[in-house]
């Protein structure tokens, strides 16, 4: 019985790995660290597999586990606390000359983890405010505020470059 339970877990996770790695990469911008996040998230998933496999939308459940692993409650503590975490709390001023992807990644990684998650989920995964609030376990108002803060900082850091990106279709 136990074997079947575990087999089901292994099959599910193996099939979902590419998607999970992609999401983790988009969140943290570092493939190495992304693998650590996925590893941690799927370990948590194993611990809660009883509950997870009964979820009506298992993919959404796993995504939530992964995003929350990335955000890590501790980074909600004061910005100074974040100095030890790998995501610095300061906007990274971006040099002119690097390509857009490097520039945006540098700017994004300067945001608090939760703002990064909100921007990635809303604008790369095209999730609605309500869905993001579910994933992060916060109010829709907080998602809006994090979006506002995050975009304002990106604008500030990326300056004209990002305006050009926004207007070239």
């Amino acid at each position, binding site marked *: 019985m136990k074997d079947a339970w575990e087999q089901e877990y292994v099959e599910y996770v193996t099939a979902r790995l590419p998607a*999970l790695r992609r999401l983790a990469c988009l969140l943290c911008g570092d493939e190495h660290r992304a*693998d650590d996040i*996925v590893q941690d998230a*799927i370990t948590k998933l194993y611990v809660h597999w009883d509950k997870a496999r009964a979820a009506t939308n298992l993919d959404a459940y796993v995504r939530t586990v992964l995003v929350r692993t990335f955000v890590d409650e501790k980074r909600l503590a004061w910005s100074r606390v974040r100095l030890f975490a790998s995501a610095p709390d*300061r906007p990274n001023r971006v040099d002119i000359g690097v390509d857009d*992807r490097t520039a945006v990644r540098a700017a994004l990684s300067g945001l608090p983890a939760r703002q990064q998650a909100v921007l990635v989920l809303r604008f790369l995964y095209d999730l609605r405010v309500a869905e993001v609030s579910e994933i992060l376990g*916060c109010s829709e108002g907080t998602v809006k505020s994090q979006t506002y803060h995050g975009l304002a900082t990106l604008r500030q850091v990326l300056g004209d470059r990002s305006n050009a990106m926004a207007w070239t279709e």
Partner: protein
Amino acid sequence: MESEERYGVAVLRALDVEPTTASRVDVSRAVSDGRRRRLIRRWARIGGCAAVTAVAVASVPLVAGALRGEDPTVGDSIAATPPPATQPAVTPPTACTVSRLPIPGGHPMALVTGADPTGRLLLGRAYPEGNKGRYPVVIWENGVPRTVDVPGADQALRDANTAGVAVGSGWGDAGPVPYVYRDGKVSVLPGVPTGEAVAINEAGVIIGQSSGSPDSAPVVWRSATEPATYLPMPSGWTGNVVAVGEDGSVLALLRAAGRKVPQAYLWGPDGRGRTLPKPSENEYFRPYSIQRNLAYGVAYSEEAFAMGGRDRSATPVRLDLTTGQYTRLPDVPMIPSDANGSGWLVGSNERGQAAMSAGKGMITLPDLDNHKSSTANIASTVSEDGRIVAGQADDANEVIQPVVWNCQ
């Protein structure tokens, strides 16, 4: 908001690429680690509760220099000299105990967000189970909690003065709203469309920022009832205030238009602003506290900043605002979060322990339970007499608890 969405999509789209390296994720390891964790959880449910609370108070004598793990004679002896004190000397503490602060409402998690200079009042917020971004704000008076209803989401009180006036913010419909708490009532600080209050001094001067889109601008409320006045800024600069001195000086971290790294900035009591010197050619100063004519903070490498990575060369420093001279504090191997008038610093070290630098040595504060993670124990505030240090610490289940270290 529609143009904001368009902007967000356009900019974030630049990141949309697939991973290029082979996966290191190990499903079988997840299974074996997961099995072990399930086992531990089962044990914790059976007999863990009593053990968890029993270790909440632990007395550990503090040994000067014990933390360093390096030759105490190495290093700059000048750096260890305490700053010139104009206040009556206070003897450094020698032993501290840690205790968990009670969380009202039975919420599982809370942390400390600020304190008054005496440590009598500790500010914090609780995280309800399945929280939705609204937090009960808590004030502990001599360790006894009461909740304060700060409106909005993402609420917090961040600083208080000895008179018991506290300041902070909450997120309303249009953006952040600056609040002041006094005489048991929360009211909006006037004069900004949206904004946050960050700190208050003993004279009741409150500093913060207005957060008009897209730039934020430092402001001062001369009192809780007067409208905010904007601090003069060089053209095109933006940034946030950090701390207010007892003479009304305001310390901030700004970003100049077209400059790569942040710039520490100070407005004197007369409201006149000036940029603060850099610690060295290749470093910038991130301040967090002002005590008389001394600013405390951390010197960071500009190169590491440009790369956006973790900066292992970060050094705590003290800046004499009168002479512009920096003193490096290499004997303080931690990221400090607060300083008091005696120049004692508290923070946490890279091993995840809370730590204090008082007088000559570096002292480790006892864990609430463990220091498995690098953010397990964090000392956030220190009282003027150095007897009350408050912050957060992981419990046995790695849930953040509000704690106070009482020092003798």
